[in-house]
């Protein structure tokens, strides 16, 4: 279980998160949604220690990690992986080496053993044939699949997906959605997904958390989100340029 309690985060004078509280239960697929700049990515990065809160408490499986030092987060990052928005594969490495890096670093395996293990993970996302290619040689959809393979290398129980379907063609986006669902059903992985993709939200999410003006504006199942009469939520769902939602 992951708990965010009264999280506050500001960058300079801009308050991004203002007293946000949220509990993510094991096995859930929770979608964090909101307009651009609403603080969705900022919120999820707190659990991995990639961003530190100005105030509030974060608990990971009951343990208070708010004051963790950087080195304390490394064991936690074995259990909680992240797929970044732009895949963030390392340009200087092949796809196989990208996937092998967390295996080598976290498990202390040799270079050869980590490559063998990485090849298996690439096979899970049907990418083993391109293992020796460079990230620059493949498209966004394939890069995203490799990034997912890299996140799966350590068999984490929690995965944070930051806009996993943004920039993907519809077919690739559906494949990613199915993968997220399959992970939850087959292995019980808890997924926190940052997204704007309404199709994805309504087909995959167990729960939707809508952030607005630094606060949790709505928290409930996708059906409650879809049926909401709140003007801000309606404007977001209908994608209307005019409405109460602040720019």
């Amino acid at each position, binding site marked *: 279980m992951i708990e965010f309690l009264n999280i506050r985060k500001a960058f300079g004078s801009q308050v991004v998160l203002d007293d946000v509280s949220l509990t993510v239960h094991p096995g859930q697929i929770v979608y964090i949604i909101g307009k651009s700049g609403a603080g969705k990515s900022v919120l999820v990065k707190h659990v991995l220690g990639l961003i530190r809160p100005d105030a509030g408490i974060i608990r990971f499986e009951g343990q208070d990690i708010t004051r963790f030092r950087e080195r304390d987060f490394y064991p936690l990052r074995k259990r909680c992986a992240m797929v*970044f928005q732009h895949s963030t594969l390392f340009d200087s490495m092949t796809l196989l080496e990208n996937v092998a890096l967390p295996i080598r670093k976290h498990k202390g395996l040799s270079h050869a053993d980590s490559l063998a293990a990485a090849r298996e993970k690439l096979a899970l996302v049907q990418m083993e044939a391109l293992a020796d290619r460079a990230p620059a040689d493949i498209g966004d959809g394939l890069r995203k699949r490799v990034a997912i393979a890299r996140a799966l290398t350590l068999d984490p129980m929690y995965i944070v997906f930051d806009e996993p379907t943004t920039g993907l063609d519809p077919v690739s986006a559906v494949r990613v959605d199915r993968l997220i669902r399959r992970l939850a059903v087959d292995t019980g992985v808890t997924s926190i997904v940052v997204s704007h993709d309404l199709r994805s939200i309504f087909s995959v999410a167990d729960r939707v958390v809508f952030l607005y003006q630094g606060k949790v504006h709505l928290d409930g199942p996708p059906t409650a989100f879809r049926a909401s009469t709140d003007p801000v939520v309606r404007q977001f769902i209908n994608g209307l340029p005019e409405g109460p939602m602040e720019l």
Partner: protein
Amino acid sequence: MKSLLLILRSVIEQTREAVATLVGTIRYTLESPWNFRAIGEHMFLVGNRSLVFVLLTLGFLGAITSLQAGFQALRIIGDTTIIGQQLLPLLVRQLGPTLVGLMVATRVGTGIAAEIGSMVVTEQVDALRMCNAPPLDYLVKPRFLACLVMLPVLVVFGVMAAFLSAMGVAALVFHTPPRVFANLDFVSLIDVGEGLVKAVAFGAAIPVIAGAAGLAARGGSEGVGEATTRAVVSASLAVIVLDFVIGGLAFLVRT
């Protein structure tokens, strides 16, 4: 007054970041295994790719210094044989290390800040942290070790280039025999030690300051640009300050 305070605050903040980066890098250097492949690649980038730049700049500088010093010597004492014996200690302990340091701060420091800064704004540094590869260990340490080794090497080549070109100019223009020009009696071990200590200190400071600037980059390409500028200004300033401090300490040793 307000802008002065802002500058002072910025200098203090950057110094704090650089010191934290230095301490962290030294800790990883002592505690975690070395990636010799990465260190070798960076040694090539720092050394081989800077060599022509260093040789040309120091070579021309030696020639210019010899020419100007020769004219002054002729005008004042009518004897150019003292140029070599005066120039060599100056090159070894002062001009060579400082100029090479400034050139590496410009050429290599900007590259380090831009590369690491780009990785920060594209979240690659966060991805490294997720892979249990701390940025100081994975990114800064190999560059730190490479510069530590290659700066003294570049200084040796740079001093040789400057001295040989100065000797050539003295022979061609002032007809000073190379045997007279290349008088090593005026170079002491303390001069050589001072030059090498400076080279090692610059080799430690430049990648650490540039790495700290890169890791502090925020935003997009504008943030990377700012980090690059900050790296070259701070690293150049550090070279000058370290030059002064080490030069002062060497002076105390001599006296």
